[in-house]
């Protein structure tokens, strides 16, 4: 345990090597976690809230969260999307209780304070008292009380919110590469095929690293390698946005040239034919030959396609060492039954029971447990060099992780 810190001491001394080192204290220090709520989750960053298709009609309501703050997303009578903190302006109770709902107004169950779908206070029970007795003071002003509002923007059916007035517009925040790839995956009308979540017993940033880690995929996720879905020896790369905070790891399945380095690994052995080959039945929908792409969007969103499986990963802290990871699977409205079926079957590759992803459920916890008692030690992150820069032709790199920490340090002032 660390000693009590004096107020003038820094929260931690980041090693002089910069983003090639990650001090383990960032995963275990309550004060850092508290500061993240303020500087990241309420900072100048867009946060994924939900999908537009979850609130298609006026009066549709969906609950979400930004960091640990509960959020309610609504579509109002005019068709606009709004997001507010799900906390009554009166005494702080949750105003909306159902994850999905349809209501004309948001009414707190505790004392019947009622808000419109933009979060403006519309009525207060017993405002004038009961039989002329009690009631709010004469100077009570309805306009001074409302649900705390977030700025909202939508992009390709994704609803984003931010608390900060300083956050640039969503497309500028994403940058051309990231927004272009989201458009490629989600630009056409889509529909929800399934959804679940996974509790990870680790700090949220370990999953943020994991999502950007193209180095581990061929080694930990042996199913990928054994069945030649995505391997480090296929053509591919790890590209970063200009500011380094978003990344995409991609590969082209048709370009496999088996490498000696990988063939010797545990992950490349055990290869045998599938007894249920339907798992890897695919149809051609990506004209550029890219068959696998995992986009990491700062701080807690992933958009991916693996073969024909299109999924959104979103994770949110549920405490210092608890993270909830959501898997949202999408198809396209225009899919024929055969295509829809392929997407559903390929859903087996990812998720909490994903043939190629289930290890991520425990691997980050292994780091959380492995570093327990070593807050002053640091991770070594030099695969692919020391820079925060795109790696055009190799995914044996940790550049995406360095990009995450660069953005994190800047926002956190660490």
């Amino acid at each position, binding site marked *: 345990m660390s000693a009590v810190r004096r107020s003038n001491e820094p929260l931690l001394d980041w090693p002089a090597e910069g983003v090639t080192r990650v001090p383990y204290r960032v995963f275990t220090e309550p004060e850092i976690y508290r500061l993240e709520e303020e500087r990241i989750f309420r900072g100048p960053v867009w946060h994924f809230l939900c999908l537009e298709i979850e609130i298609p009609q006026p009066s549709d309501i969906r609950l979400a969260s930004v960091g640990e703050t509960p959020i309610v997303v609504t579509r109002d009578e005019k068709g606009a999307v709004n997001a507010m903190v799900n906390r009554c302006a009166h005494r702080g109770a949750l105003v909306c209780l159902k994850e999905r709902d349809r209501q004309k107004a948001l009414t707190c169950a505790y004392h019947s304070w009622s808000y419109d779908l933009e979060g403006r206070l519309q009525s207060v029970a017993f405002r004038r008292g009961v039989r002329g007795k009690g009631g709010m003071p004469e100077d009570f002003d309805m306009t001074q009380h409302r649900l705390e509002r977030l700025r909202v923007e939508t992009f390709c059916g994704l609803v984003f919110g931010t608390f900060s007035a300083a956050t640039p517009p969503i497309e500028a925040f994403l940058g051309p590469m990231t927004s272009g790839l989201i458009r490629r995956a989600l630009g056409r009308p889509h529909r929800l095929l*399934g959804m*679940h979540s*996974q*509790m990870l017993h680790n700090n949220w940033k370990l999953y943020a690293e994991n999502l950007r880690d193209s180095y581990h995929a061929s080694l930990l996720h042996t199913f990928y390698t054994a069945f030649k879905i995505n391997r480090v020896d296929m053509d591919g790369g790890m590209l970063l946005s200009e500011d380094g905070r978003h990344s995409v790891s991609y590969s082209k399945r048709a370009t496999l040239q088996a490498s000696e380095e990988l063939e010797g690994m545990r992950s490349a052995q055990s290869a045998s034919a599938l007894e249920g080959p339907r798992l890897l039945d695919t149809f051609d929908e990506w004209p550029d030959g890219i068959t696998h792409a995992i986009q990491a969007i700062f701080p807690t969103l992933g958009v991916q396609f693996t073969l024909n499986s299109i999924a959104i990963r979103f994770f949110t802290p549920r405490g210092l060492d608890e993270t909830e990871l959501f898997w949202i699977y999408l198809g396209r409205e225009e899919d024929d039954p055969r295509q829809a079926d392929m997407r559903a079957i390929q859903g087996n590759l990812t998720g909490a029971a994903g043939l190629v992803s289930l290890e991520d459920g425990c691997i980050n916890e292994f780091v959380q447990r492995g570093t327990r008692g070593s807050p002053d030690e640091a991770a070594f992150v030099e695969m692919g060099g020391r820079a925060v820069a795109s790696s055009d032709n190799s995914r044996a790199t940790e550049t995406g992780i360095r990009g995450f920490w660069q953005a994190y340090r800047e926002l956190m002032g660490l």
Partner: protein
Amino acid sequence: MAVEPELRARIEDLLGALAAAIDDGEVERWPDFFTEDGFYQIIPREGYEAGHPLGIMTCAGRGMMRDRIAALRDANIYEPHAYCHLLAQPLLERAAEGDIAARTNFALYRTIQGRATELFAAGKYVDRIVEEGGELRLKSRHAVLESRRVDILIVLPI
């Protein structure tokens, strides 16, 4: 239409033996409880009720079930753990084409090595059971989970 007591006893034996095979680490026997093209899916209740095609784990046919087993034996990485299924009495009904529709509530406890036993999942099996050459088999099974939230991961079938 009611299911006669003798058939009910055979179905209860089938469901109990299936759960025991997984609990006892004999997951290789799991596909044999299904017909060759049998369907298996783990899906959260909210997705099941909304008619979502995609669950958490889906196997269409014994081949895909065997692939799952091969993966968990040879490829996947996870901490050693074991299941203990508790099954409620099945509700049975004769369905179309002589199939039997069964609904069986379950509680599933998981013990990860060195840790306490924890409730991992609860829900219901929604099964279609058929008789094939004198043997009862599952034509389909939906393991419908009450919660959409999975602790850590699922590698063994439920």
